[in-house]
């Protein structure tokens, strides 16, 4: 996995993590991170436009906008970024802090363990959904 892929994975896992637990986790890390200089550069809500693909003729079109919260922080020499669905600014800020810390190699062990635990939980939720969906597959009879 390239560094960009690894970063894409942790940002995705964290964006889907339960927000309150995530904020609590980051709250607990702050005393260890703050000595390296934590600066919030941006923390706002906004829209991202979602392009989709027409499966009839291949045309790309804009299916609508999605509300997101985003955050940019600086921690040491790294710039962390996060965006997550909804308008929870603290959730975005918490993820951006983790993103910067992982890039900077600060508290990386604890954060990676948290990411992996979340990733496993999400993978199991997806697998369970897939199983439940598969249980609705039918063989139609026509006469």
């Amino acid at each position: 996995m390239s560094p960009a892929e690894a970063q894409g994975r942790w940002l995705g896992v964290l964006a889907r993590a339960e927000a309150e637990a995530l904020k609590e986790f980051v709250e607990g890390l702050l005393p260890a991170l703050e000595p390296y200089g934590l600066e919030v550069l941006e923390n706002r809500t906004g829209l991202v436009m979602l392009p989709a693909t027409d499966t009839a003729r291949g045309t790309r079109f804009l299916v609508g906008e999605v509300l997101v919260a985003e955050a940019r922080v600086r921690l040491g020499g790294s710039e962390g970024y996060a965006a997550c669905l909804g308008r929870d600014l603290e959730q975005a800020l918490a993820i951006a802090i983790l993103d910067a810390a992982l890039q900077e190699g600060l508290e990386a062990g604890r954060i990676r363990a948290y990411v992996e635990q979340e990733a496993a939980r999400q993978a199991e939720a997806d697998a369970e959904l897939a199983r439940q969906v598969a249980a609705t597959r039918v063989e139609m009879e026509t006469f």
Partner: protein
Amino acid sequence: MAYVAARGGEEAIQQAEALYRRLLGPLDAGLVRRLEQALPYLLDRLMGEGSLYAPELAALALAQTGGDLYEAVLLLRAYRTTLPRLGYAEPLEPEALLTVRRISAAFKDIPGGQVLGPTLDYSHRLLHFEPQEAPPARTGAEAQASLHLPFVADWHRQNGLLAPRPPDPTPGPEIPDLTREPLLFPAPRAQRLQALSRADTGGVLALGYANMRGYGAIHPTVNEVRLAYAEVRLRHPVTGAVFSAGRVRYSQAEVLTKFRPGPGGKPALELGFAATLGWNEVKLIAAAMLDAAMDQGEPHPAHTEEFVLSHTEPVEAGGFCIHYKLPHYVTFLSNLLAHQGQPEEVEDA
């Protein structure tokens, strides 16, 4: 149209709003949360027409308007204009959809099988008067469990029944956007599909039904209806890493026309298509039929792009309709005087 300026009435207007809110009852965060949990399909309809995916805000709009859908869509559309557009997500690729329902009426043995997913399509439409618990999950098809279901149209293409689907490399900011450019006719296909994605469910159904019932020149078959989750993939502004900011509910439908002469005179099928934010099957089946119908060059209004897209825009249509409640005293008075044959003496409008 003639309007008349009016003054006063401020106290009455305040009391009218207060009466409305009293009849509606209290609104708090708990109510909004319960609406969000209990009415996902209604929120989907709202978010699709509002062209804004934000379940919490859709629930708030619903609570604040007492469930008046046109007012709620207007609230969402108005709110979106106050927010900056941070950028464009990576284009949603069909193959990446996490599909939970995919059925075809074209033929039964579609690749991947008919997957009913969450639906009441085959259930009795009966009111249940007892409380209902969510039934426990009963699974057993783990071997075939995947949320990546193939596309029926790809099978048609492999068998030479449909034209290939060429890739469209247009980057997000260059895709025609009817929130930034007016809708002109004939509309670029991208704008047509965007207009259908945010169109009024009832309006699309009415015109689509007109087509189905006999005013249409096509008799389409539902090639596929698909309900899915789509990842909203963004780019890290510093490192360029692509990541998912979360999942949205997304649905799409395709309808097949009859065989028609294709390029080179060889008969081929054509597909009508529609997609929207949220899960809204009835709107998409009707909209995909309208998409196919609008290409047929028929004079009937339900085949005409200008007629279909202009009259299924919920905020414009709903807004124009309710504007008639505003004072039209001069309109009516001029009509009255014309009828009485004395149009010159109008002292007080």
